[in-house]
């Protein structure tokens, strides 16, 4: 049994450590949220089945290429998640400069070393996988922002606090935006807002931020292009146009979205199984990555899509539950950031495949093929479990009143 993390917390005296003589096996079983675990394992299984089905014909002679890799990502991510679960996440608060620094360094490294793929520089190629910094960056941002916010928890009414946090969130968002990766930049913005929300930032600050945001969008979309500065790339404009005018099928963007909608619609109630021509015959590009939900929708129909969505609902619900039992504000903020990130990504990705959101290139957490996304999401899941475990143990030590620092 690994209790080292707990020991260190105990030494620091932040929380009185529970009875160390407790049966370790039992505590291990009780110290995690089974609902969350069920949702994650269920999604992992769905992901493996969907990726296997979608990519069976993609690489000749190696039908399991993507399946094997995806499974390996889950194993690696799961291992990291277990490690994190058995660690006290609160330690990360002290490492806020390290995490934030790592986040910025990783994003800058991508700019310098990154591989240009499909017009954007998002990943660094390593021998066995390509590292997408923005995926891990989302988790690092949650942890760092939560830590910075906790530092100023007593001055939340001060608008400088809000401004500082927003600034900290916008720097990585801007770097990601330059890659260019509008979707991930939006995730950073959502994370920042979620951290502010659960920290208790006054509503008037949100109102002011909303006003500033709208003004910034107006400038970016109307004023700057008129002055000759293009904020959005052409392909991003195309995506927006394709979303707003889906019947104009001439562009590749609306082609993808149309094909995705056809794939999902054609699945009907119970799916087409092996007759899933949209994915099999490659009408739907990116079917194992960004459009994996369309594969589920076509092969297994409404039933399959509903199952996957239910698993996400379970995950979000358990996340909110974990937020409420967090032993400290830091945990609550981390949990809030993670939930908001997951919810946003799920909605934007699924919305994209069913034609109610524009194409943004945001992967479906735990479903889309891709090592960076899987590992980063599993890290987030590990943190949630750690918050749960810590919250449980703190609550178990009777009479303890949690002091937010």
């Amino acid at each position: 049994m690994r209790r080292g993390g707990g020991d260190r917390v105990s030494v620091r005296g932040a929380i009185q450590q529970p009875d160390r003589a407790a049966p370790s096996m039992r505590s291990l079983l009780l110290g995690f949220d089974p609902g969350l675990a069920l949702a994650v394992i269920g999604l992992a299984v769905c992901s493996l089945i969907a990726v296997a089905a979608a990519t069976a014909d993609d690489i000749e002679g190696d039908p399991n290429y993507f399946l094997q890799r995806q499974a390996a990502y889950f194993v690696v991510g799961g291992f990291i998640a277990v490690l994190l679960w058995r660690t006290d996440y609160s330690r990360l608060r002290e490492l806020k400069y390290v995490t934030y620094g790592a986040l910025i360094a990783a994003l800058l490294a991508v700019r310098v070393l990154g591989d240009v793929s499909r017009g954007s520089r998002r990943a660094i190629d390593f021998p066995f996988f390509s590292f997408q910094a923005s995926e891990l960056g989302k988790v690092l941002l949650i942890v760092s922002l939560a830590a910075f916010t906790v530092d100023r928890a007593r001055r939340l009414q001060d608008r400088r606090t809000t401004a500082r946090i927003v600034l900290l969130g916008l720097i990585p968002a801007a770097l990601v935006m330059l890659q260019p990766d509008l979707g991930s930049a939006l995730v950073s913005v959502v994370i920042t807002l979620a951290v502010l929300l659960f920290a208790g930032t006054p509503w008037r600050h949100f109102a002011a931020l909303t006003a500033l945001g709208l003004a910034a969008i107006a400038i970016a979309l109307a004023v700057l292009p008129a002055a000759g500065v293009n904020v959005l790339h052409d392909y991003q404009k195309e995506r927006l146009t394709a979303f707003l005018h889906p019947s104009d099928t001439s562009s590749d963007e609306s082609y993808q979205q149309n094909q995705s909608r056809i794939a999902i619609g054609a699945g009907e109630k119970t799916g087409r199984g092996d007759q899933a021509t949209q994915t099999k015959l490659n009408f739907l590009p990116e079917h194992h990555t960004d459009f994996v939900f369309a594969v589920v929708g076509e092969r297994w129909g409404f039933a399959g899509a509903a199952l996957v969505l239910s698993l996400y609902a379970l995950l979000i619900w358990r996340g909110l539950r974990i937020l409420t039992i967090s032993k400290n504000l830091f945990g609550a903020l981390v949990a809030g950031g993670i939930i908001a990130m997951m919810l946003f990504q799920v909605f934007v990705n699924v919305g994209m495949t069913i034609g109610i959101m524009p194409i943004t290139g945001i992967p479906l957490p735990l479903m889309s093929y891709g090592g960076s996304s899987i590992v980063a999401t599993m890290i987030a899941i590990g943190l949630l479990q750690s918050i749960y475990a810590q919250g449980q143990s703190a609550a178990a030590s009777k009479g303890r009143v949690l002091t937010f620092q």
Partner: protein
Amino acid sequence: MRSHGGSPHGDVLRPTKRSSGVVPGLDNRPPLTPQLALRVAILGGVAFALFAIVFLRLWYLQVLSGDDYRRAALDNRVRKVAVPAPRGWIVDRNGRQLVTNRVATVVQLDPRRIPAEHRDAALEWGRAMGQRDALPDGHKGEPTPIPKPPASLERRFAALGSVLGMSAASINERVVQQIATTPYANIRVRVDVPRTMRNFLLERRASFPGVTVQQVYLRRYPAGTTAAQLVGTIGEIAPDDLKAERYRGVVQGTVVGKEGIEWAYDSYLRGDPGVQSITIDAAGRPKSQRLAREPRPGDQLRTSLDAGLQQAGQRALARSIQGGPGSAGAFVALDPRNGQVLAMGSYPTFKPSVLSKPISQQRYDAIFGPRAGSPRFNRAISGGYPTGSTFKPITALAGLDKGLITPDSPVYDPGVLKVGTQEFRNARGAVNGTISLRRALQVSSDVFFYILGRDANGLPGQAIQSWARKLGLGHTTGVDLPSEFGGTIPDRAWRARLKKLEEACERKRKTSSCGISDKRPWSLGDNINLAVGQGDVQATPLQMAVAYAAIGNGGKVVRPHLGVVVEDYGGRVLQSIKVPAARHVKIDEGDRQAVLDGLRLATIGDGTSAGVFSDWKHDAFPIYGKTGTAERKPHGDQSWYVAYVAHKSKPIVIATTVEEGGFGAEAAAPITCRMLAQWFDQKSRCAAAVVTE
């Protein structure tokens, strides 16, 4: 964690906890501030709303409109492709093949994959070249250069050219030319591609966007140049034609007849393309295919042509022109009973197979340009010439009909006819003395017919003109070939019309002369010239053949035609093509016999063409023939011969003309003689003879 599972305390408290959680005790839970609770509730509400939206949308897509999307998915993967049907063969009256098919591998470019700017440039080039063609010779100026492709397209052409062994420039030329003529049709880059090139291209589809390699049916011409101008050409249907009634039901990309018999009998020859359904993936790669509808091959057309006669005529015409002063010529052989065209040729000629492959403009001009004698021009139906003395039988019939002469009226021919200050002389100054109609036709007395022309001019109703029209001149004969020329029979109204045109033109262009007419009214001299087939009269060899056929068969003006029987692929008769005569002309039998006697005499004794037929078996195959020599300034004399042979089983009318061939007996008559020898399987020297007329 404190052990609590087994303690009574924990058990007592358990009912108050959430069942799924393992929260040790309510009192031990961390405090949840109302503010945080509210905000968690807000996020929970937002999450609930988002999931509800997604679920409702999925329900709508998959359950409510799933059927539509399922259909869309099926449409997505199945492409219907037309499978070309082989066109029907064209054979001669004895079943000898004139046009058949062969399968060829062609490399084509999809015009939609050519950038719009280059397509527009090609169309613009086509317009410029069209305008240039309309200008008179010598004023055309420099040809418009072929537009250069954009750099990226040029690289594509160069890549394709390196495979096909062609330069990027020559590919570009083909692309531009074909876009200019048929803008939406596949562009044929190279025909008869070897298997290795084909495989190379098929294996690297992605590197050659828009390039397809296909098996297509091309026309084969086993008989070489035989009937080159008649069979015509084929090509993908032009976009404007898709709306035409005659192409109803034809889809874009179908190969249709463009000229000649291919055009005229396209609906029989075309067949119906089949449909192949191909299951394809998103990159357009075929995954599986099946024939949804078999192509129906086109029907075979049996023509009235006799390949042997046709080839004999072509050979004789070519020999005559190559060995004499002639520059071009044509012949038509008809069955006088029904108008079936037994042979029809025009010289210069060409190999029709040249046109079944893409050809550069330079090479096209060299083979088919005016300098090469415009070999695609079918002089037998489109060439209008003054007919010379071959017109005389028509004048004779008019004179007889109007009572200007009887078959035996004596007329004195002193060698010249004076009308006012004008003198009309016999050719070569011949003086024939007192002659009647038969002798006048035999020796081709001009004065005899000048007098008829002079006397007919005063009569009401312009008898010569009306007889010429009745017998088929001055308007198209209705032959089943496109671009027939109607010819001219000049009369008062015609002169007046020309005058009006000239005046209108002069007013419009504000010049002193447009060269259409000298604005003079109809004159006596005009009628005298017409009486011997000189002056403004213009007729095609086909029209003359029809007129002589009517004289020969007793007044039936036939409608000449080539199509006889439509047969299926195996040779079974599907449909006989019946072409009724255009009309019947009442000719007095005595008059007709007198004219025929004159024509018969012209081929024997001291007749104008007797020398050519000196060794002919006149008893077995009596020839009724007339030479003609028409002045056609500034060109040399137009040589004519029209002959009718009244044979019981195989009567025939042959009209032959040679541009700048000299006297009728010099060039045209020997050609006719050789054709008759072939037709009746006779031997004859058919010597060219110089005889005055």
